[in-house]
């Protein structure tokens, strides 16, 4: 079957591109990355639009580990989102990364292969392995290409992330040890994990929940994110916010559908998520660094997605998946523009950049529409995600489920305030440099998808 042929290609293309990367010179490395991202994008679309398919390669059969890749209604939306974000990030590589380009290509391709691997794997072991690799690649993104405080931010990121991934590892191994027959394969676990003793299920759920809450992130475990985003290079921020945060959401969805006991405690997840939403929206308003402000809104959006997941009904889950798609695209767009502002004005400070619209009209429109998509204005993909999430959340939690709307209102106010101060104010700051054309291409592509998925959501939701 053709689709099961495309399936492993999604992971294999970036890995093969590594070969081209090593053979070609430093000057060509961004081209390799772009070509690879385009091919992955095509392979992902081809796979997803052919419907559900799977691919199995036995790996360590004796311990129940195989490379089991599956495309289904859950992950196809996330796959498309990841492919789009990686494509967008690859397009602006030339502009933002000017040194150590070959090494950047190595990190980028490994991150791409492993992030898509996380969404594709239907084997918990491989899920963990891909998760871990993409985290380590992100550490290097921040560490090697980051801003002035990169050491601190990179180490904070890696300590949080590895805590998260190792909690995940313990959880996965506990699941393995408690099911009969021992296996990591999700297609078997979806049935057999239900039979784990409730006490053990609760323990596993707590471990995994903390792990995913660190990754998403949700309130008490969020403090790595603003620092990581502020210091990461622009493309790194796009990938981190666009793709890596979604591992947490996807993991939460898997956890809830695997362990019935976890569902009984969904109110607690929801409580944390609501608090996180409001808290981070308030924190975002306070920021004077535009990238930091955007980073905080990303916590807000992920909180809303967590509410949708916690609702655990068809509308909520679908909304959360769609929200992740929308958030991935919108937040990458916002980080892209913020990064471009830094390249042209040499600062992220909201108070020092004035009147962008007078100089760069296109960037202003990109940011405004990105902000609207992040808030969830109709005709952008964010709206579809939000409406589904709140319908689902209202269905499960009642009126309390609508609380996170406060968060949306707050970040809406914050976004408009940023737009007012930075982009459309009367005063004008003189830019130091012109932005590159690639920003426009990459940004327009993200914009196109955000609006496309907002107007015709059924091209993706139809899979269900």
């Amino acid at each position: 079957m053709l689709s099961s042929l495309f399936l492993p290609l999604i992971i294999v293309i970036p890995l093969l591109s590594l070969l081209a990367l090593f053979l070609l010179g430093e000057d060509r490395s961004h081209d390799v990355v772009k070509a690879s991202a385009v091919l992955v994008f095509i392979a992902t679309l081809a796979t997803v639009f052919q419907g559900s398919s799977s691919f199995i390669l036995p790996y360590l059969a004796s311990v129940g580990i195989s490379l089991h890749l599956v495309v289904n209604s859950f992950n196809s939306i996330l796959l498309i989102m990841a492919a789009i974000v990686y494509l967008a990030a690859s397009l602006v590589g030339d502009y933002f990364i000017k040194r150590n380009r070959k090494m950047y290509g190595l990190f980028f391709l490994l991150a791409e292969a492993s992030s898509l691997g996380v969404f594709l794997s239907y084997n918990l072991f491989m899920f963990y392995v891909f998760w871990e690799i993409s985290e380590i690649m992100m550490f290097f993104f921040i560490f090697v290409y980051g801003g002035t405080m990169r050491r601190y931010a990179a180490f904070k990121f890696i300590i949080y992330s590895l805590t998260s991934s190792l909690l995940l590892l313990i959880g996965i191994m506990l699941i393995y040890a408690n099911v009969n027959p021992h296996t990591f394969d999700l297609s078997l676990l979806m049935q057999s994990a239900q039979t784990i003793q409730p006490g053990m299920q609760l323990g596993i759920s707590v471990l995994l929940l903390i792990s995913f809450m660190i990754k998403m992130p949700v309130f008490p475990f969020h403090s790595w994110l603003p620092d990581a985003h502020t210091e990461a290079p622009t493309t790194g921020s796009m990938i981190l916010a666009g793709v890596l945060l979604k591992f947490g959401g996807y993991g939460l969805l898997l956890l809830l559908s695997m362990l019935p006991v976890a569902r009984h405690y969904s109110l607690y997840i929801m409580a944390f998520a609501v608090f996180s939403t409001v808290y981070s929206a308030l924190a975002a308003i306070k920021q004077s660094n535009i990238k930091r402000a955007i980073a905080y809104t990303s916590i807000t959006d992920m909180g809303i997605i967590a509410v949708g997941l916690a609702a655990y009904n068809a509308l909520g889950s679908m909304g959360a998946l769609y929200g992740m798609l929308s958030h991935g695209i919108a937040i990458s767009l916002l980080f892209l523009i913020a990064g471009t502002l830094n390249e042209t004005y040499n600062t992220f400070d909201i108070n020092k950049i004035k009147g962008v619209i007078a100089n760069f009209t296109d960037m202003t429109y990109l940011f405004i529409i990105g902000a609207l998509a992040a808030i969830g204005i109709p005709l952008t993909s964010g709206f579809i995600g939000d409406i589904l999430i709140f319908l689902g959340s209202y269905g499960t939690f009642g009126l309390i489920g609508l609380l996170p709307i406060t968060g949306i209102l707050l970040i809406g106010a914050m976004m408009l305030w940023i737009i007012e101060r930075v982009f459309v104010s009367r005063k004008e700051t003189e830019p130091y440099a012109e932005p590159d054309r690639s920003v426009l291409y990459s940004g327009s592509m993200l914009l196109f998808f955000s609006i496309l998925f907002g107007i015709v959501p059924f091209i993706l939701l139809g899979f269900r």
Partner: protein
Amino acid sequence: MMGYIAPLGDAFVLLIGAVMSIAVIAGAAITFYRRKRAHLALSVIVYAASALLILYMMLAGGTAQMSIGGFMLINPFSLFFSLIFTVGILLVNIIAYAYSKDYNEFALLASFALIGMYMVAFSLSLVTIFIGLELAVLPAVFMILLSRKSLEAAAKLFVAASLSTALLSFAIVLTYGGSGTVALEQYSGAEILGFAALLFIVSLGFEASIFPFNVLLPDVYSGPPAHITSMLGGVNKKVGFAALMQVLILGFIAYRQAFILIAVLSVFTMFYGNLVALMQDNIKRMMAYSSISQAGYIMIGIAVANAAGISASLFQIFAHMFIFIGVLAIIAWLEGHGKHKINDIEGLHSENRFLSFSLALLLLSLAGLPFTTGFVGKFLIFLSSINSGMVWLAFLGIINSIISIYYYARVIAKVYTGRRVSRGIKVDRGIAAVVLTCVIITLVFGIWPLPLMHITGNAAAALFPAAGAA
């Protein structure tokens, strides 16, 4: 049980003969002849041939075992360890050739040590283990003395080895008193044997760098030049584990307290190694503490005390040996350029890309990067301990992995940042070969661990004869 076909038994005798003859030839070489290159070629050929022979016996023999003259036992377990020791000594020889001033003496002492290691691996009785351990550790003392770098390290190693010997002999005497035999077989009954098990853990703990008995070890590791450290940490320490596994699993499997003690000590060993490693600024000293923490992980597998646990520990021993020797080869190269501190290696990336990449990869493997042997080993260890109900042990082990990432990442970060010195620095071909071997093995068995898991599984099964017969 099926025996080996006769030529294989002969092959084993041939093997021991070959190693002994190289020792003799090395002695002659020192007396008459000062050419190092011919000597290295000879050592490499003999060790490589021995390694191939052991590998052949391993693959052809399957799970069979055979005793030679009632004093030595060939089984997958002993073959596994003898393979590790041979390859380890081979790699160490190449490093020493590049950086030791008196390579001939080093090679001679290393071949003596290897005979001792073989004795431990193939032993059927406590007495052979005792003699083998002595033979393995004393040459190391002389190696450190010969390097004229660190008298202190030699003295400390000697003190530790003497203490270990004294306690080991006492343990053997107690075992003989309790069971009436010095043969390695399952002991039971007399309470005095429990005390003997404790003494075995203490005495072998000196060799295997188990927590309270390893306080002298970092000085021993960081004093001498890197090629000697690579032998001490890469090969000699594994002898301690070979002996510990044989004695505890074959002899004292009935004494649960001994394994609980091992579990508790493993936690202390991991935390001690990792927490102190965090504060080191000398890279060799950091590696010494890191190898202590790795010993802690290996002990988890022993504490689990079933075939899966031992198999995982053997995997980790294999992984750690190659990683440690690879890193120490790079450190030997660094020392050759007068770089000892972690701060000195800033910007190493611009001086030599191959070694920087290898160092990063090997350290990430120690930290547990997926698709490297270090990760597979740790994963199997934690999985075995969770599977046998020791969740807390795996949990503490995993916490330690998180801690350890900090100091490995710090070194890697230094390598890839900082001032850019555009001039490349050449690497000795031997060092490059050793590092490349270690990196390839780390990656190949990390990506495709099945063959190695099969071998370690067989080796571990050999320690559990009762389960195998059933």
